[in-house]
């Protein structure tokens, strides 16, 4: 049948595998041309730096040292990194922050998604209210919460009658960072989960209700399993942005007090732009990429579903 259709109707290869006509070949070539700018630009800003980092990580590339520039040093940068207690501490902090923030923020985002999913008067207002924190720059969310937690200018101490200097203690600093991060990120995760909720057919709920299932049973047995693909995407997204947290740390604490809130990204930035050590920084960057791949892989494997399209 496909062979009898006029050539123009056969392109796209959706109807089986039509013989490749001139039109298809021309379309394919044009298709690659249309994709080329996007691919070239993205390779230039991701793959190229990755390769450059790999190269640097095996060389001495410290701009502040005149001698030994560009020499091959083998895995020295890596052994230095694995033995550095600063790096190990930053790694541990980053993992702990990512783990805790993923758990809490995903649960809260799920609640928000269920709220946004319901039809009710004022839904538009709720949508605008939660979209604005997502849309503002991280600089705004970080500066805003820095003001909030400030003892003299903020409302946290004022309203709750506390006298805490939040950003000078370790745990209070992490609390402030977490609040600023959660406030900005939860809306976006909620939107991802909302898009998962929207494709669950309503008839299923109707049937569950007729069978007398309680709200919790419905949620536990129907909503959660059907939401799994969306949850996987949300978890990967959240985990990666948690592992890469930089802006909020830079603005709110600058890694302090001491080094107590220094994360991997912040350490990486310091190594590149303060120490101007691009060899050691390259090694840290490479490990950061590996860590992200591992995290995404683990979540993807844990959340695998057989019927994922």
């Amino acid at each position, binding site marked *: 049948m496909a062979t009898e259709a006029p050539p123009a109707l056969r392109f796209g290869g959706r109807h089986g595998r039509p013989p490749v006509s001139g039109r298809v070949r021309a379309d394919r070539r044009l298709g690659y041309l249309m994709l080329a700018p996007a691919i070239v630009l993205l390779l230039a800003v*991701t793959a190229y*730096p990755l390769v450059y980092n790999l190269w640097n990580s095996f060389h001495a590339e410290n701009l502040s040292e005149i001698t030994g520039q560009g020499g091959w040093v083998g895995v020295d940068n890596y052994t230095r990194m694995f033995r550095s207690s600063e790096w190990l501490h930053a790694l541990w902090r980053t993992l702990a922050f990512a783990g805790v923030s993923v758990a809490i923020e995903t649960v809260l985002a799920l609640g928000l998604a269920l709220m946004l999913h319901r039809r009710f008067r004022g839904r538009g207002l709720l949508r605008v209210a939660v979209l604005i924190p997502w849309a503002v720059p991280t*600089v705004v969310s970080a500066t805003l919460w820095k003001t909030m937690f400030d003892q003299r200018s903020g409302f946290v101490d004022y309203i709750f009658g506390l006298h805490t200097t939040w950003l000078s203690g370790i745990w209070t600093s992490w609390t402030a960072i977490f609040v600023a991060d959660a406030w900005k990120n939860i809306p976006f995760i909620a*939107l991802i989960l909302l898009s*998962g909720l929207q494709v669950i057919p309503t008839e299923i709920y109707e049937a569950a209700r007729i069978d007398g299932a309680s709200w919790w049973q419905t949620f536990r047995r129907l909503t959660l399993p059907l939401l799994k693909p969306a949850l996987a995407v949300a978890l990967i997204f959240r985990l990666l942005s948690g592992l890469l947290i930089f802006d909020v740390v830079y603005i709110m604490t600058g890694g302090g007090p001491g080094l107590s809130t220094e994360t991997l990204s912040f350490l990486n930035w310091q190594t590149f732009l303060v120490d101007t050590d691009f060899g050691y920084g390259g090694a840290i960057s490479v490990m950061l*990429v590996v860590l992200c791949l591992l995290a995404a892989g683990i979540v993807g494997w844990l959340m695998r579903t057989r019927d994922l399209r």
Partner: protein
Amino acid sequence: MSTESAATGPLAVSRPHRPGTRSRRVQRIVREVCFYLAVLIVILIALFPFYWILRTSLLSDQAVGQGVGGPNGIIPAHLTGSAYSEDFNQQGFLTPLINSAIVAGLTTLITIVVATLAGYALARMPIRGAGAILAFILVAGFFPVLAMVGPLFLVLRNLGFLDSIWPLIIVYLVYTLPIATYLLRNFFMQIPADLEEAALVDGATRLVALRRVVVPVAIPGVFTAGIIAFILAWNDFAFAVSFLETPSHFTAPLAIVNLGQSQFQVFYNRIDAAVVIITIPVALLVLFAQRRIVAGLTAGSFR
């Protein structure tokens, strides 16, 4: 109600005993009240910090020095615009704003063109390995920003492009291109192919069909992608703080962070005035395009 009477069939056997209709109605009202209360709390948490920022930005330097409380409570007794004039007249906050607008605007423009082409190709063209290409584009969006900063710093340094806003336009594509391409691909897949096929049968070339037939239909999708791209480019801090040095070359987010430094006392009114100003364009975009943004971010993800 009709569904409930229908439930008295065989399916209702396993149904637990329910209390009478009156207490059920009370239960429902309580549940509604709780729901709206929760909505109210969420809206408060989302928006109250903005009120506080606005409030702080309208205080005088003196009032900020006195701290919160007394006449400077939740609703301060005296308001003044002095922090705003300080930001614009003394700190030159207008220049970073213009820089940010230029960079975000041009990034958005490039994103729209490049992502429309790529999204269309992925949705419609008989390309081999379209899935893998899409996967690469999406993965690129998750690439650690800080792992890009070092090498790009060296490249820009060697090219003499450090401390300039122009390279940022290209660098910011890593934020905008993945999501815009994905969004437009989904959008094109939802448009029936009949239109362009008719144009092609009539002898139009692909590109003419794309420009005359597809793009007009796709305007809402392109618009949504543009808004999201602008927001993402407007929001960058990591690249700006790594590549820019001269205050007159700063983007607005970077300028805000530097406003608070170099002073003995932190003038939160000045910082927060800048925060208010930089938030306004984003808030306006969200206000006027919330439906589009939500639809864009959720459309086709799990269909």
